[in-house]
């Protein structure tokens, strides 16, 4: 069963075709990696999925419902969460509050005038938030200002925020970029554990082949806005088109 069905999606920025007739099908409860050189259109594709960009052509269906034209918060409420390439967190709030917000959003919807009760009286939510912080080893940083975290911690926090919503589809845009090897391995373990313990589909954009081959069950290779190859990771490795795409493009540091 495919949970995400991207059909004939194109997106132009002026003269540049950032996405050119993209067709991708993501199976439910799998890890699907999208790889490709810089500028291939991977982030643009995610922007289309989460409602930040409206494609010029094509359709996107999540679990049988079209996502085109929906607002970002509506798409999230349907069960799609996103981790950004540069972490998007609530910088001037505490780590703890950063986790509370998605939990409230999940329970109360896009808006609720919930202004008399004290946050700490929301026992369920408080408990879930603390549990989530323990799960990602950030409990002792609970009172810190999120902006003062290290880059790796910011990513982990953002991931924890998304996971706390128990999304059905989690989109990750280069989750290990700029991480040290040890942190990368922790992230791989965390993602694998998430995948094994929950009903969740991961769509992950990644440069690091180590991450891709450790996690992905399916890989789409993109270049210049178009998917070139769509196959199992073991078949991708030696594929001539993939070699060409990577040699043709330039690698990121």
């Amino acid at each position, binding site marked *: 069963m495919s949970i995400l069905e991207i059909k004939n999606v194109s997106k132009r920025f002026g003269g540049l075709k950032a996405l050119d007739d993209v067709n991708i099908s993501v199976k439910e409860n799998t890890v699907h990696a999208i790889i490709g050189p810089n500028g291939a259109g991977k982030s643009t594709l995610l922007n289309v999925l*989460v409602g930040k960009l409206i494609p010029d052509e094509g359709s996107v269906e999540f679990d049988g419902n079209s996502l085109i034209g929906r*607002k*970002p*918060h509506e798409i*999230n*409420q349907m069960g799609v*969460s*996103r981790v*950004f390439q540069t972490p*998007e*967190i*609530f*910088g*001037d*709030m*505490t780590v703890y*509050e950063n986790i*509370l*917000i*998605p939990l*409230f*959003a*999940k329970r*109360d*919807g*896009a*808006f*609720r*005038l*919930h*202004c*008399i*009760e*004290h*946050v*700490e*009286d*929301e026992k369920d939510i408080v408990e879930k938030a603390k549990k989530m912080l323990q799960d990602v080893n950030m409990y002792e940083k609970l*009172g*810190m*200002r999120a902006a*003062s975290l290290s880059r790796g911690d910011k990513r982990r926090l953002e991931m924890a*925020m998304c996971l706390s*919503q128990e999304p059905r589809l989690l989109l990750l845009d280069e989750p290990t970029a700029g991480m040290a090897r040890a942190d990368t391995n922790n992230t791989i373990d965390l993602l694998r554990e998430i995948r094994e313990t929950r009903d969740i589909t991961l769509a992950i954009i990644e440069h690091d082949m180590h991450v891709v081959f450790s996690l992905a069950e399916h890989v789409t290779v993109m270049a210049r806005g178009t998917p070139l190859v769509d196959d199992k990771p073991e078949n991708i490795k030696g594929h001539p088109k993939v070699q060409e795409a990577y040699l043709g493009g330039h690698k990121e540091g």
Partner: protein
Amino acid sequence: MLGLSKSDIRIFLLVVVLTIFAPFILNPFPEASGLAQFNAGYPDLMQRFVIFGIFAIGFNILFGLTGYLSFGHAAFLGVGSYAAIWMMKLLTMNVIPGIIMSVLIAGIFAVAVGYISLKRTGIYFSILTLAFAQMSFALAYSVLTPITGGETGLQPKISDPRMLDAALASGEAPRANLFGLEMGTSYELALSGWVFTFNVGYYVAAIVMIIALYIAIRIFRSPFGVMLRAVKSNQQRMRYTGLNPKPYTLAAFVISGMYAGLAGGLMVAMDTQVGPERMFWTASGEVVLMTILGGTGTIVGPILGAGLIKYMENILSKINADILYEWFAMLPDSIADILVFVIYPFIGKGWHLTLGIIFMCVVIFLPGGLVEGGQRIGNMFGRKKKTEGEKSSQPAE
């Protein structure tokens, strides 16, 4: 207690106690002393302290939490005032219907203004609110004269219908009251040289302010309050977390508009008259200054800021050159001349200069406002751990 955390309850009770004993605290100098002119414990000024306190508390819910800077909140103050005075003309001189109506009408007006202004953010939002307020001011002055009384404004007249009140005896003027207890009534207590005034109107306004402060603290600490701070922090992340920032911001805007309306209604309850100048843009700017001066986003900051500005406006502005010469009477004339020459620009009409300098110093050296100043002083005296609970959600390092 009261559903508040320990540090919040401490601050809240402190405000309550200070408000109750304000007639003593604000009159520290004996009546006959030269310093008596620095006493602020007279009804008119004390009423202004708490009413502008309410105005600033409400403004802080919008500006302090969401970061949206409105430059038009005086419009809601004015609308609240007009609503209240009409209740006094049509229904009763009892202040309750007027106060309720001022909140409701200001709230409705805020829905309309907020809905349109919040289509933009940043400076464009500020300009839109300013435009709305100036429009309201101009309309009140001109086209809407039948409702607003134009330049002369409105006040209760003997001939008003006042459907709920008994007819006034001949020669009796309509007076604002709370079930018969007149707002203007004062009790004086003379204690060997000191005179303390306890005014009914002040205590009515003070009770309303305390309730308003309590509600504000609840909002600050609620999930809704957290969402409002999220609006200020990162709207993009909010959207991708399934939250719609729009209704949150609009709700904050309307709540703060209702606080402004409440302040306007109370102004009428204390001093039964309204004019359009209440909506002028300088009045909108003043509440911004109050909030920043006291401490944006803190709980008591806005009240402190309102107090300081109203104190300077009413006390500092009354000091003139003659008074200065009186103070320096014992000094040689030439030195007194120099001192007066130096101080004079900062007093009387020059109080704006003093305010401007204080404001600049606060913004540059104490970005957290007077509250931050208080915390720093508190920390110097060794109360290192507790930071007044103002920032209890901030890092505990």
